[in-house]
């Protein structure tokens, strides 16, 4: 900050706050804005994803418990790429059919295989649901610190301006402090929604995972009954 900028009346709009800042503070602010944009993009993405997943699961459960033939359901679902619960069902049914169509003599390992396949698809689904949530967690926890770093740097420069002008009046100190605090504000703006979204989506993922586990157990029980009847 040059002494020319230290005038008794300081323009305090957002743009001048940004433009007057040191380049380190500027880069911190830009990084935090990018992080905030990313966080909100992930949040929108995830919100749509969860809404879609919930709707698809509801739809699938309705179809599954409607008394429709499993073979028929499998045929309709395997035609198009399915997700979450439908994918679980398709994976289990594929394993079942492969065993029966292969003309296997023993069904001893079938139950375990189906369980394992369903576990794999559950973990794959959960991974898909909670992908990028770590970004939210990172921004939520590191954002304030990054903003604080910008603040510390800005206050350092404002102290340097005090030393340069040998004057501790508010007019000398205030602009530097204001732009420095602006960096912390940016960090908080990025971090607070990130933390909120992270908590919300983590609980959503847990809910979805529990729902998939429940379905997998139920389907496994049904298939186990079938195996016992066949065997």
């Amino acid at each position, binding site marked *: 900050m040059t002494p020319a900028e230290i005038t*008794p009346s*300081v323009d305090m709009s957002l*743009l001048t706050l940004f433009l007057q800042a040191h380049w380190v503070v500027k880069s911190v602010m830009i990084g935090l804005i990018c992080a905030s944009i990313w966080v909100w*993009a992930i949040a*929108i993405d995830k919100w*749509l994803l969860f809404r879609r997943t919930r709707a698809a699961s509801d739809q699938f459960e309705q179809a599954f418990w409607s008394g429709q033939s499993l073979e028929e359901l499998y045929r309709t679902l395997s035609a198009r790429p399915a997700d979450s619960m439908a994918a679980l069902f398709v994976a289990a049914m594929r394993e079942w059919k492969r065993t029966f169509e292969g003309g296997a003599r023993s069904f001893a390992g079938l139950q375990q295989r189906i369980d394992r396949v369903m576990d794999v698809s559950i973990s794959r689904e959960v991974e898909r649901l909670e992908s990028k949530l770590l970004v939210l967690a990172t921004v939520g926890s590191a954002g304030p610190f990054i903003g604080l770093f910008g603040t510390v740097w800005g206050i350092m420069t404002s102290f340097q301006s005090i030393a340069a002008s040998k004057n501790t009046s508010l007019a000398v100190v205030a602009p530097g402090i204001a732009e420095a605090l602006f960096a912390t504000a940016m960090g908080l703006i990025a971090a607070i929604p990130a933390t909120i979204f992270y908590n919300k989506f983590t609980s959503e993922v847990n809910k979805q995972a529990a729902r998939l586990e429940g379905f997998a157990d139920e389907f496994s029980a049904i298939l186990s009954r079938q195996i016992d009847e066949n065997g």
Partner: protein
Amino acid sequence: MRPDRSFAASASLHAMVFGIGLVTFDARPMVVAPTESMPVDIMSMSEFSQLTRGQKTAPKAEKPKHVAEKTGEVKPPDTEAKKIADKTIDSATPPPLPPKVERPPEPEPKKAEAKPEPKPEPAPKKAEAKPEIKPDAEALEKLIAKTEKPEKKAEPEKKAEVKPPPKPVDRPKQPPPVAQTPPDPNSKFDTSKIAALLDKRAPQRAAASGAEVSHTASLGSVTGQAQQLSQTEIDALRAQIQRCWNPQVGAAEARDLIVRVRIALNQDGSLAGQPMLVDHGGGAYFQVAAESAMRAIRRCAPYTLPVAKYEAWRDVEVTFDPRDMFRG
């Protein structure tokens, strides 16, 4: 889900928020008025505890003190104009310069001059005044021109009936001839000056009120409890004793003959008992020094000290130190 679309949505959301921020968050330009620093005195804890008791709301003074006026000898004022101005008002003081005596000092003649009869008078007066004042003729002429302006103006007025005013001094409007002070073009109306002019007392006077201890301190802290003698009272006691003390200038090692004497005093300032030596040093010279100190205390016996602080000086220890005479 297409991440690029959610990214676009997020970016547009941020752009919107910052756009609103740019428009609305136009914080008023921060104008900092320069503040004056406040002078601060640092006082020690003991100074603070030694504050005398007082109230901020204490009455200022019960009655005005009698002001003794002393009029010194009349000194010639620094400016002649002032003197003349004084004279025009204060006719009681004898005019020190002869040329002014010829001018009638009373305001009545001036009024009379406004009439046509005394018109010839001022002119010859000036005429004869001028040759007489040789030493400071120029200054006096100027002064006379100033002081007698009303008169002079009265003249042209009369003349104006016959011919236009010959002097540029004249103004279209005539000041009333009763005006005693000459109107100075570069002076402003000042009531304090008028008051000073109306002051009949001698300008050399020196007003003074008698020294008196104020019984209601208007300064000091409410919690102040100090009954200690203040420095001025110690000085007063020291000065009173000092008058009567003849230190032993000729004694060997006179510098070290420090005598400390304890004095008990009555409320009226007289000695309540014999002064006592605090420490008895050795040597013949010390005895002599102690004797001289005792003598001094007895000789100046009734001391005048503030009665209000009697508790503080009822029992005083005085140090007779030849190096700095005394220390209370």
